[in-house]
């Protein structure tokens, strides 16, 4: 691929045989001190987060934030409407009557929390991301089918075009491909 050579090197992609091989490779790469690397698989692999020393996902905190907005938003809206914006006395029932707020408070908390879950997930993952140098690789299409890949970015402090490739070769990669952007 001579045309591609002209572009900037973005990283090195290595394919591994199966989930176990990828897990071991991730451990090796992580122990070697690389930090800007990632693994790609058609499904989440058990133990991969530990192998890559990933921190716990922060999605939960975003959900909590959204959920609290839903919770207090719902209560505020209902109390304000029923007592001040449009107070209507129905069979002389109290204007502010907490039990009746339960169903809608619950629903709005769930609704906002689930918005939080999806926005949080997309935000933390940096999605939608239409352009990704990895899409230049024909072989990488199999990451969503039956391929197991490890990618080290050239931005990593330890990265060197030849040494990293050799290193991945030693980690029993099936094939190695340089990715240009």
């Amino acid at each position, binding site marked *: 691929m001579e045309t591609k050579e002209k572009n900037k090197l973005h990283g090195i992609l290595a394919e591994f045989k*199966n*989930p176990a091989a990828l*897990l071991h490779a991730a451990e090796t790469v992580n122990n070697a001190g690389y930090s800007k690397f990632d693994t790609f698989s058609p499904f989440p692999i058990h133990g991969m987060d530990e192998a890559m020393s990933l921190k716990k*996902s922060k999605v939960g905190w975003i959900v909590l934030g959204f959920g609290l907005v839903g919770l207090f938003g719902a209560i505020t809206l209902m109390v304000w*409407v029923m007592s001040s914006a449009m107070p209507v006395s129905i069979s002389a029932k109290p204007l502010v009557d907490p039990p009746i707020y339960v169903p*809608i408070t619950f*629903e709005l908390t769930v609704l906002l929390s689930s918005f939080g879950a*999806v926005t949080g*997930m997309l935000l933390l993952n940096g999605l939608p*991301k239409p352009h990704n140098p990895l899409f230049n690789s024909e072989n990488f299409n199999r990451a969503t089918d039956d391929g197991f890949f490890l990618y080290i970015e050239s931005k990593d402090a330890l990265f060197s075009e030849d040494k990293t490739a050799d290193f991945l070769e030693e980690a029993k990669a099936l094939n190695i491909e340089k990715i240009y952007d």
Partner: protein
Amino acid sequence: MSKSYEFVPEPPLVQGNHTFGSITALIGGIPEKKTPKGWYLAFGMANILLLLLVSLLSYLVWEGLGVWGINNPTGWGWAIINFVWWVGIGHAGTLISAILYLFRQHWRTAINRFAEAMTIFAVMCAGLFPAFHVGRIWVIYWVFPVPNQMGLWPNFSSPLLWDVFAVSTYFTVSLIFWYVGLIPDLATLRDRVKSKTSKFVYGVFALGWTGSNRHWSNYEKAYMILAGLATPLVLSVHTIVSFDMSVSNVPGWHSTIFPPYFVAGAIYSGFAMVALLMIIARKIYGLEDIMTVDIMEKMNIIMMITGNMVAFSYLMEGFMSWYSGYIYERGIFWLYIVGPYAWGFWITMFCNVINPQFMWFKKVRRNITLTFMVAIFANIGMWYERFMIIAASLSTDFMPSSWAYYSPTWVDYLTYVGTFGLFFTFFLLFLRFLPMVAISEVKAGLPQADPHYYEEDEGLEGSNGQGTIVIQPNETA
């Protein structure tokens, strides 16, 4: 008694020695293949019914609610019956996708995707009825707290308003949950399809998903939280639907058993609908390896349990009407059994009390034809149950002088038939263009997805080196 115990492995979830690649090809290949002729036929029929629905609803809006059979005292006729029925059907989808997920029931992966699709389309059908039943559909947005120049706000103490929030939240959350589940599979399709247009469209909706583990980590967390949110939600929706009735003081409605009774009934009819759709889909699309008879049996057990919960609720209703000592409650129960709608009561009894008992037999649970029949009767039974609750309770309420027999008109009948057009139009589009089984989840459930599966290859332990698929106990971390 023998003291030796043997490890009995569960039957594998996916049969027929599949690999990751063959799963992708099996499920992902369906949207790529040429559209089958039968699909056009089914889609055409669904479109005709959809057209029927649109024309009848237009007629209703043009002419007014009088074209329906509702009268005084039966203000809630077929519209609300159909609404409760369709919402109930939707419940199985969320139960499968959320509750079974939290309980780590991996067999759900075979059916969760299209059960969720069924939920979304069933809730769409359901939502139509109360929306048109308000009579002035063009001001339906008044049910939402929208600031307006009249200074009007909805009455938050009304169960009907709670229902607006419950059903719209349910629809939105189900849609989000479904879409989040679809993202990795849309990426699979994006990477598979040849045509430029399809690649673009799948690519847009896949949002640039790559299968990165850093992404999976957040994704799995979000998915689990969504499942955790959808679990109380699915229980709350039918609870709030039952509040529409049980919060009022109509005899036959004013009862605390309604919420659990409604939820159990919803799951019963929903699983019946999933079973029906699954039996048809596995046959047409050759997915017998994934949607196995073992899974059908598990669904049938859930139908049996929830069916019996419903049967128990009928018993309790009868008991409470006597035990309460409340004359109107006794009266309405007596009228259910021998009154003008007794035929509906006995249909309900047959379909919801006797019918699920067939599932006690393993032969029936594993028989596709019999399951199909039981599932159809379950759906009929649950429709009649709502008919009894709504029409029979309203038409003979407190004062005999105000009693009136309720019967539907041709518009009621055909509108109901038309909702099947709406449902199947969307469902067939889904079957045609989207992966009907959660590809990534099925792969994650294969034994070879577990890194420990390969320990034998490297001679660490065990002697089974031929790659035979066996499910192994997985305590050694």
